[in-house]
């Protein structure tokens, strides 16, 4: 990825130079693994799991399918899980995109306009800490379809962290950027788009990272309630059938999907924030 970008876009060369020569480290970091300790811990975890599921005998053992059984089930269930992922993402991606877009736009406006800040802050202070899972039953009752209800709660879960971080980013922007914009005589729109937005991006990305985790929580929880398909639905369905190998496989699969999504976001962030020292 880095190699391609440095050829295609010389502007990104600086960002790539800094990471060059660290290929192994980069790959390890990619999986969240740093050095052999992480791998050893995962192996240890597998051993403990294997031991619990096969080594000892107790009444609830059927709740602990062995690693081998689980990964076989995971392999068999992949097509079904993949379809579920597609259905989940059809709700997740548009809702999250809308929440990120509105969170950034509204956040930039509120963060740079004292009057808007005074108007919106009291409401934001009250509404933003409400755990968005609380809205799920009401959203399902209120909105015509499950998709719109799930989309709504995902939106709420993503909007607040993105919005709040954007406001912080815009409000804590170094004075020198504002001075420079004033010296150049930039108009409000240009100032927001070419100065405040890029300067706030580090904060905005922290907001999106938090929002992404929230989005998965909101969606899977919502799917437990009333979906006909999707990742959360998959787990709920096989829990109802007491098919624990499939359920655990679904949990592991969901973990991997969240990890991959986070990594994708991290890569986008690296590209957009190449200019940071």
């Amino acid at each position, binding site marked *: 990825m880095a190699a391609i970008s440095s050829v295609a876009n010389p502007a990104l060369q600086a960002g790539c130079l800094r990471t060059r020569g660290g290929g192994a480290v980069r790959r390890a970091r990619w999986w969240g693994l740093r050095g052999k300790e992480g791998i050893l811990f995962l192996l240890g975890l597998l051993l403990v799991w294997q031991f619990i599921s096969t080594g000892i005998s107790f009444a609830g053992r059927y709740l602990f399918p062995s690693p081998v059984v689980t990964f076989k089930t995971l392999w068999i269930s992949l097509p079904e899980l993949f379809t579920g992922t597609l259905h989940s993402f059809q709700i997740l991606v548009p809702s999250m995109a809308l929440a990120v877009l509105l969170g950034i736009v509204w956040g930039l406006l509120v963060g740079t306009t004292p009057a808007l800040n005074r108007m919106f802050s009291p409401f934001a202070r009250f509404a933003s800490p409400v755990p968005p899972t609380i809205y799920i039953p009401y959203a399902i009752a209120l909105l015509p379809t499950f998709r719109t209800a799930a989309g709504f709660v995902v939106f709420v879960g993503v909007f607040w962290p993105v919005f709040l971080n954007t406001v912080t980013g815009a409000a804590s922007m170094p004075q*020198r950027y504002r001075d420079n914009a004033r010296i150049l005589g930039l108009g409000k729109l240009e100032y927001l788009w070419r100065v405040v937005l890029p300067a706030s991006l580090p904060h905005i990305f922290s907001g999106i990272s938090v929002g992404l985790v929230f989005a998965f929580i909101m969606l899977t929880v919502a799917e437990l309630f009333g979906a006909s398909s999707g990742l959360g639905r998959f787990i709920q369905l096989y829990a109802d059938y007491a098919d624990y190998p499939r359920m655990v496989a679904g949990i592991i699969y969901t973990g991997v999907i969240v990890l991959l999504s986070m990594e994708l976001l991290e890569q986008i962030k690296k590209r957009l924030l190449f200019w940071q020292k």
Partner: protein
Amino acid sequence: MTGTPNHLPAVAAGSGLNVEALRFAYSGTPILLDIDLSIAEGEFVCLLGPSGCGKTTLLRLLAGLEAANSGALSWNGAPITGPSLERGVVFQDYSLFPWMTLTQNITLALKKSHPEMSARWRQNLAEEYLEMVGLAASARQHPSTLSGGMQQRGAIARTLALGSPVLLMDEPFGALDPINRAKLQDLVLDVWSNPRKTVVFVTHDVEEAIYLADRVVMLGSAPGRIIQELRIPFTRPRVRRALVGSPEFIFLREQIDERFRQDILQRIDADTVMAGGGEGI
């Protein structure tokens, strides 16, 4: 006033930069006190003083980035009420936006100074300005990949692109090594004379002030006020090798140092008197 052929000595009232009875306080603490200063159009003035003397604040007031508590500032008779493209500013560092390439930084400035021209035209002109400051090869680079000296060259190019008749420079070379500093001083003298601009240059470096300025305005601290103004009589173009270290240069430098020493001693005496008065109570 020996040998200053480039000067515009007689100034019509209302032309150039004018500061009258200026006062500026920051949350009750006086920063600048009763500043009166006239800078002729085309003059190169250095504001010289120790840290905390308010020289940067004075420059920000001239730029229109701060508003005075009382007094008046004007450029060619028009009061200064806010920033304007007529007065370009180069800050000590970070004048450029780090997320844009050098060219993009300059085309953004050109968009304001030449709104009627095409993007292609602005691009070409940006590259010309970069070439003028010796950065043609780095046009597509981002500031964080450049040295401090190159970044300041870029900042100067951007200010030139604004086409401002007034250049305000806030210790622009304070963070540079001596060699780059000297090179950039000569660059500033170059761009100042062609076409001729009015330059206000803030520095705490006595030699830099003498080398660059037509006139050095010395500010004392706590609160900031003008303690002396000194005309620099050297002819232009100035030759660094011949000038720096010449008896005349050293004489001026010592005169300036001595004046600052006196001011410091006066301030200490004044504080002692006040403290002495306090002890009696």
